[in-house]
């Protein structure tokens, strides 16, 4: 049973209170704010101040319109994204982040690609069951929304994956900016923000006891209900408060950047003996890849019997022992450190080099928190970069 620590643990460790308590941003400071991660000085007019009742009512409207609504719920003590049948099931109380990412709603853990029937010499192929309907993913943290944006790049650019594309088209994302950070969070270190807008169609920004709701895309704007006419428009003070909270949370994260510019150095550090040490305690499970919002590796297998079945796409992880093992027994990555290295380099070097400098990691911290042996990918990247930059051991 995984027990999550409370944010207070982190604050105590740091020896000072989280900035939000009693700290206020002055009007002047706010006007002068040039921070690119700012909540958006230029869209101040497009927001509403909503309370819990109002957003729950809004979710109810979405459900009644026939959309599938996916939101955080509490299940057996875990916070998970589930499709809900009523707005009341949505649980944001004590919500840090869900145990694993919501990527399964765009990229299912198991997906039938087609069915087959074996009829003597003939084979009959059938289309997979339709997975239709609009869906709204509600309550994603900005890191998860950014992670799904990475999946978009992987599955939609360079040739579209039809089932992913169809599902993505029907999906709107409402993110919920963070009012606190956990020790494992590091979105700011990878170019993100607790109020980041990447990948979101709408966003709720926490105020004290209320939220500032804003539409970020035309798709998001369309989801705003007619009843919003009765909502209170967000005031300048609301925007300022949202900004304060963002700054407070960002500052509490306090991690040094892991730059995409490090990618060539990390790539060059491939042969460093350091990886043996970094990957030494890895036990070769798939937790990190499966809880991650941007990990997208998959396997394709036929599941069925002698008469019929389906070809399925299934989550897979480069950390699992069978990932690159050939039928002949030859395995280019025969050791756990070599597989761990692949995961780190794919996230922080290869993907950025293939995708114009965008890191694949979004800093949600789940792998750091949930790794059974406490491997910290941030530490691995920092140390590999140092080793690569110093040129030790380079052939």
């Amino acid at each position: 049973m995984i027990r999550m620590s409370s944010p207070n643990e982190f604050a105590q460790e740091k020896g000072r209170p989280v900035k939000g308590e009693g700290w206020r941003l002055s009007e002047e400071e706010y006007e002068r704010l040039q921070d690119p991660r700012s909540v958006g000085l230029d869209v101040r007019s497009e927001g509403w101040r909503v309370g819990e009742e109002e957003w729950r009512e809004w979710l109810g409207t979405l459900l009644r319109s026939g959309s599938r609504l996916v939101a955080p719920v509490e299940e057996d003590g875990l916070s998970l994204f589930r499709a809900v049948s009523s707005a009341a099931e949505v649980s944001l109380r004590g919500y840090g982040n869900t145990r694993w990412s919501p990527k399964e709603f765009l990229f299912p853990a198991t997906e039938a690609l087609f069915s087959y029937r074996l009829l003597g010499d003939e084979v009959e192929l059938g289309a997979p069951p339709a997975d239709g309907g609009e869906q709204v993913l509600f309550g994603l943290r900005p890191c998860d929304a950014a992670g799904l944006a990475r999946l978009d790049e992987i599955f939609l650019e360079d040739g579209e994956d039809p089932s992913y594309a169809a599902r993505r088209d029907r999906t709107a994302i409402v993110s919920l900016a963070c009012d606190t950070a956990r020790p494992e969070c590091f979105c700011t270190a990878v170019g993100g923000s607790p109020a980041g807008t990447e990948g979101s169609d709408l966003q709720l920004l926490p105020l004290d006891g209320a939220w500032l709701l804003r539409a970020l895309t035309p798709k998001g704007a369309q989801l705003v209900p007619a009843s919003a006419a009765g909502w209170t428009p967000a005031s300048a003070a609301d925007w300022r408060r949202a900004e304060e909270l963002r700054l407070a949370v960002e500052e509490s994260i306090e991690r040094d950047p892991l730059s995409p510019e490090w990618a060539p150095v990390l790539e060059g550090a491939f042969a460093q003996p350091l990886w043996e040490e970094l990957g030494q305690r890895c036990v070769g499970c798939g937790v990190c890849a499966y809880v991650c919002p941007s990990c997208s590796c998959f396997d394709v297998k036929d599941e069925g019997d002698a008469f019929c079945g389906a070809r399925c796409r299934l989550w897979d992880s480069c950390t699992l022992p069978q990932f690159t093992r050939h039928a002949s027994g030859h395995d280019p990555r025969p050791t756990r450190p070599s597989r761990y290295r692949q995961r780190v380099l794919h996230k922080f070097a290869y993907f950025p080099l293939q995708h114009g400098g965008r890191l694949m990691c979004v800093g949600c911290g789940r792998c750091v928190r949930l790794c059974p042996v406490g491997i910290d990918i941030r530490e691995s990247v920092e140390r590999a970069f140092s080793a690569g930059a110093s040129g030790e051991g380079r052939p």
Partner: protein
Amino acid sequence: MVQLAESKEPRPRVPEKGWEPRIVALVCNWCTYAGADMAGTARRTYAPNVRIIRLLCTGRLDPLFVVKAFQQGADGVLASGCHPGDCHYVQGNLLARRRFTVFSTLMDFLGLDRRRLQFAWVSASEGVKWARVVDEMTQAVREAGPLATWAAPAATAPSPPLLDPGAEPRQAPSREESGRITAQLQETAANLLAEGKVSVVAGYASGSLPGQMVPAFVTAPEEASRLAWNERCANNLTVYLPELLRKKGTGKVGLVVKSCDARALLGLMRESQLDRADVVLLGVPCTGVWDGGRLALKCYGCSEEVSPLADLTITPEGARQGPLASARERVAVSDPRDAEIAALESLPPEARWDYWQRQFARCLRCYACKAVCPLCYCATCIAEKHRPQWIPAAFDGAGNTAWNIARAMHLAGRCVGCDECARVCPADIRLDLLNRRLALEIESRFGYRADADPSAPPPLTTFRPDDPDEFA
């Protein structure tokens, strides 16, 4: 959820008109198959609901055969073989008797109606008995109704609430005390390395999250200062032994162990996976592991402050040879996992089934449970084998249930209750309860505990002539 071709459509729990039970019978070739044949030649009339699959011996019966039968649509499974003492291969059925006892317990604990899984002894001359066994089983399964397919979505019934384990029987050691043990541990490790007595010491060091302790491997005396000991040292480091032993060169492997961890060593020795002489166990005094501010459940009922297997015991005062009888009295409390097991067993089977299916539906098939278990050392796990694919690869109810059953059965009688699997499971599946239920069953039925002497054979590889026999 994967929807396969129409033969796998979910079937309703309430029988439709004209439904007939489908029963798979796994029978041994020499006795029961002949007995069934005899029923035929004797023109006995009996229920036609059974499909026979012939095995050479019930000793060949693997739990996955039964799981597959259920997942392919059987409403009941019957296994039958020669009477004890009459096995064509002398002892196959005596092994089967033990294994089936344990497997039935697991399936009952998971909430499978006991009527659906039966075992019988039918000899070659007992055609009449065969007919009767089949008739009775068919009638029982008819009453139980069709078995909802295991590919169906998990029930949305709420889980029974977790029981409050009660007041923690002990306190975590003070920082000062942990600090003193740490200092002694560092010195001991440094000395062992400097003297060349070990080539590596596996212990714990600070992780990057507040208070986190993680596995650490130290190969030089000056690195020993990385090691530390406190109440957050949860990992079972024996899982690293096979690899460390392979790489160790000429030195031995030093391992910091709690008593729960070290028990795994007995299993590894019993199964010839290592030579005890190659390992130096550094026992540390442990009052429990605190995770997320709470004492781990396994620690409540633990009475061993230091592992009795320790080669060296690290105390706040220094390292002593051998294990150390602790002067501190351990408050004896009952294991809270037993109360949870009892609570589950008091529920009707359908509620238990829903409880476990709800958890298995969350299973991510990350295999973290397998990865951290010291006794899961197979080079290729049954879950990874694809010729044939015994465990469905799909992450659905059927596949996840098959995996969790296989895991529990492969560890039955071997698991030492370190609960690492449950600690690391990202889906919070109560693997600890599954393991413990089977461990208790094996102890009560066969008088065997996994921390027994390594010379005692694993319980499911042996038998006694007077093993419990509740079968027809």
